[in-house]
């Protein structure tokens, strides 16, 4: 039953462009990008117990590197993508060394400070990043000579990358390494006594999450063909964190659901009210006060009421 539902859902996702209009296809592309981003943050927040408020750094830096290399230095999309992912992952390794000196709230504060520094740089180094004007006039890549300029082709591209990302992150957390990660989250001392290296496990997870954050950043810049410092801002990190927590951190599908909801809310609400930031703040208060464990765990608890907790 569960498998049939999943297969139907996958078929619906793949066939979406055949029955939906361009507006909805583009919305779906944005959802796929936001979902990859939220899933990568969930590796830290849900499975690693490391609440980061600076995850937008990886999205933004990957997007900026690709944008700068292709628009200013004449790189092709292939080499630019490789440099941007390698660079972002390397940055995640360095940020991890700094931020993992602390845990809990200290970790949160350091990730926030680091990402604010990057945001400030993007704003102020205007001779490199073009500051508040952002970098416009970018192009989408043409993998194997296929143009991604139509809504449907880009959606399929994003969906393919998103599926690979979902599978690889699922494998990551269901592997024995994933078990040691949740072990370190719950009982760091016991894990250390058992011979694991908690710091190394956290660091590797941080780098892996940074890698997927970078991948979502590449898709983000391909989709928008534009990049602005706001994609590095705390709001951007906070939207993703809200998606993770609203959907249910530490579950495999929750963050994707949460990211979808945040994105839909953002798209539909901004048609009626101008004040997205205020609404975002209110939704934060609501989710934390009313639904602290998230939507997906809440729903599955309802569905499995007879079977008891998993």
């Amino acid at each position, binding site marked *: 039953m569960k498998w049939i539902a999943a297969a139907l859902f996958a078929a619906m996702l793949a066939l979406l462009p055949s029955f939906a209009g361009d507006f909805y296809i583009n919305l779906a592309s944005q959802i796929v990008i936001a979902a990859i981003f939220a899933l990568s943050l969930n590796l830290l927040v849900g499975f690693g117990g490391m*609440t980061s408020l600076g995850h937008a750094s990886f999205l933004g830096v990957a997007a900026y590197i690709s944008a700068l290399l292709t628009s200013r230095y004449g790189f092709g999309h292939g080499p630019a993508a490789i440099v941007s992912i390698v660079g972002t992952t390397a940055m995640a390794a360095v940020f991890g060394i700094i931020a993992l000196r602390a845990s*809990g*709230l*200290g970790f949160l504060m350091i990730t926030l*400070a680091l990402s604010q*520094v990057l*945001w400030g740089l993007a704003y*102020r180094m205007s001779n490199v990043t073009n500051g508040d004007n952002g970098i416009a006039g970018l192009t989408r890549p043409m993998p194997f000579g296929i143009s991604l300029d139509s809504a449907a082709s880009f959606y399929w591209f994003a969906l393919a990358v998103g599926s690979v990302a979902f599978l690889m992150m699922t494998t990551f957390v269901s592997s024995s390494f994933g078990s040691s990660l949740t072990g370190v989250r719950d009982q760091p001392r016991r894990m250390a006594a058992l011979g694991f290296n908690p710091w190394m496990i956290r660091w590797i997870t941080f780098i892996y999450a940074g890698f997927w954050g970078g991948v979502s950043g590449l898709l983000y810049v391909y989709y928008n063909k534009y990049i602005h410092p706001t994609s590095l801002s705390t709001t951007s990190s906070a939207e993703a964190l809200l998606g993770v927590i609203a959907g249910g951190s530490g579950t495999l599908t929750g963050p994707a659901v949460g990211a979808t909801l945040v994105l839909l809310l953002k798209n539909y609400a901004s048609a009626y009210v101008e004040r997205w930031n205020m609404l975002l703040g209110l939704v*934060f*208060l609501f989710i934390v006060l009313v639904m602290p464990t998230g939507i997906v765990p809440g729903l599955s608890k309802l569905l499995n009421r007879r079977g008891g907790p998993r």
Partner: protein
Amino acid sequence: MQFWIIQGLNSLSLGGLLFLLSSGFSLIFGLMRLANLTHGAFFMLGTYFGATAMRAYSGLSIWTVALGAGVAVAAIGGLFERLVLSKLKTNPLGQVLVTLGMSFIISDACLVLWGGDSIPVPTPQNLQSPTRFFGFVFPTYRLVLVGCAIAAAIALYFLLERTRLGAMIRAGVDDRQMARAVGIPVSNLFTIVFCLGAGIAGAGGVLGGPILSAYPGLDGDMLPLALIVVILGGIGSLLGAFIGSFIVGFIYTFGTALFPELAYIILFLPMILVLAFRPQGLLGRLGA
């Protein structure tokens, strides 16, 4: 020479402002184990209150305005603590998230109320003329600001070390459960400390107004500075916040003057050094 002296004074005055901002942050963190991400927004709210009051009634002295704005921001902070934060005592992550949500709400409300243009705050008239000292010229207001920060530091020191309330706060910082067991009303202390921290930030916002002026995004500019100060100085330590503030004030001012584009990077070098060698901060006792 004049350059170095003026920049030195600018560093001191920025350090003083940062102390007004981060002392409350550090105090709240120490007692409540709560990273209050609304703190930058409280500071900005103070600046906007000050700008509005001083432009509407030009006769008001900046001290009255700072006191009034401090009380107003403290009241807002107190309501927030009572109505929202106290409901989340067992959920530290939830607390951080609601402070973040609250900071979005406040900064967006400021944008609605005061618009997107920056509002300059006039320097008080009796402090406008420069002070001459050994042949050098100093802006008087900045000197006064440094004095304010030092006065605030001394007042906070006496409050914490010499009064009954301070003794209760220190007991709560050291061991919350034990403090509760001997009859200290810790929940009320939380509210008092949160109000105090928010109030100092609000008053600091008014005093910082003539230097920074009120603009949207001021909260986002100040919060990371406060975070860096607190990470540097050590969480929950008043002296640590004091020293950290002036270190950050110097680095940021000289960084901006000498390498304008790299100031943000230079700013977090000391943070990395401290984290590498003393993760608990220069004077911190608490593991974050």
